[in-house]
């Protein structure tokens, strides 16, 4: 009977070792497209946008004052082209920063594990120079405060909507979480799917 007890306990111990549910197994299974916007903002009356020709990397060095580094080509151009195409499909017109655009798009890639990016708007000035006020920007809606490494973050700002403390209003944000991690071979399909999805789920941008 003692052996029987031992056997029964062993059988139950075996059952207990059955593993916890696995969850995601590959990098693309973690891909997440997040978007948020200001419901009070009237997108219908805005027609033009400006977009820089580089995507800055948010790195630890950048946060401590080093010169900016950028996402390498052709990846940056591919992503910027996709963003531009989607904006145009939705009825927006791309113009130069000097032509007084209704909104500015600020793309960035996060290379640190987490960063309080939403308060970190300093790189914005490298592209938009005197077109951005020294106060940076503010979010009229709850903003995600930290992101994982490899995320693409695009912020839409209205440069003509400035608060009393000299901050420009953020009206739309999208994040493709973790898109710059994983295999290079799948990058194009993942980034295309992600950026297109960001616009698909942001129908309020449509003219």
């Amino acid at each position, binding site marked *: 009977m003692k052996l029987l007890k031992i056997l029964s306990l062993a059988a139950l111990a075996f059952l207990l070792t059955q593993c*916890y*549910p696995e969850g995601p197994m590959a990098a693309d299974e*973690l891909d*997440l497209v997040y978007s*948020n916007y200001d419901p009070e903002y009237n997108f219908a009356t805005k027609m033009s946008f400006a977009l820089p020709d580089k995507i800055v990397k948010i790195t630890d060095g950048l946060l401590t004052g080093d010169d900016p580094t950028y996402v390498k080509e052709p990846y940056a151009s591919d992503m910027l082209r996709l963003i531009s195409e989607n904006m145009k499909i939705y009825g927006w017109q791309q113009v130069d920063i000097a032509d007084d655009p209704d909104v500015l798009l600020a793309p960035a890639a996060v290379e640190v594990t987490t960063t309080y990016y939403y308060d970190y708007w300093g790189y914005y000035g490298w592209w938009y120079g005197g077109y951005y006020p020294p106060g940076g920007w503010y979010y009229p809606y709850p903003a995600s405060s930290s992101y994982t490494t490899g995320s693409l973050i695009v912020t839409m700002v209205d440069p003509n909507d400035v608060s009393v403390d000299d901050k420009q209003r953020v009206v739309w944000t999208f994040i493709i979480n973790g898109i710059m991690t994983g295999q290079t071979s799948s990058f194009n399909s993942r980034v295309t799917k992600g950026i297109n999805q960001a616009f698909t789920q942001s129908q309020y941008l449509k003219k």
Partner: protein
Amino acid sequence: MKKTLILTFMLAAGVFISSFVSAQSSTSFQYTIGIPFSGLKDHTSVISGRGFTMEYQREVAPSVTVGINLAYSVFYEKKPYGSYDLGSATLTGNQYRYNNLFPMLVNAHYKIGEGTVVPYVGLGIGTMYDLRNTDMGLYTIEENNWHFLISPEAGFIYNLSADMGLKLNAKYDNAFKTSELDALGNLNISVGFVWNTY
């Protein structure tokens, strides 16, 4: 090794049969399958094969035992790539949903008859802790809830010897609605061993 295998086979086949002997107390340990209902099914609709149940019972009157019942089950479901709205925010991706259930009961059993196979019915009352996670990307929405719990139960014990038996039962955990979460239902099908002490 061969002897162990034979004994295991004999155990599985229920060869060890002896006359029933009334126990003063018993402890059981069972593997549990969970079938979700109501609010639990709305979040994770897949049957859980990951669970166990522990129980202690003490005889307080002929055919009547009272004791405690503790269990754990984890429900998991991968939702397909899709969009989910949270206020003005929208999240799109694969969703991985988990419910970790910890029912804790004070319960009573009533045994129907005596012999090698002893059916019983029971009822438990207590609480259930539900740790619920909804994962997207590397983010998770975590919810913690304590539910009031009532659990009717029925099953039988197959006595292998005077101090040990097999136990098979069905228990329905009816976890009441909380201020933040709907009611949950979980039908537990459990099989395992019971050890008697005198």
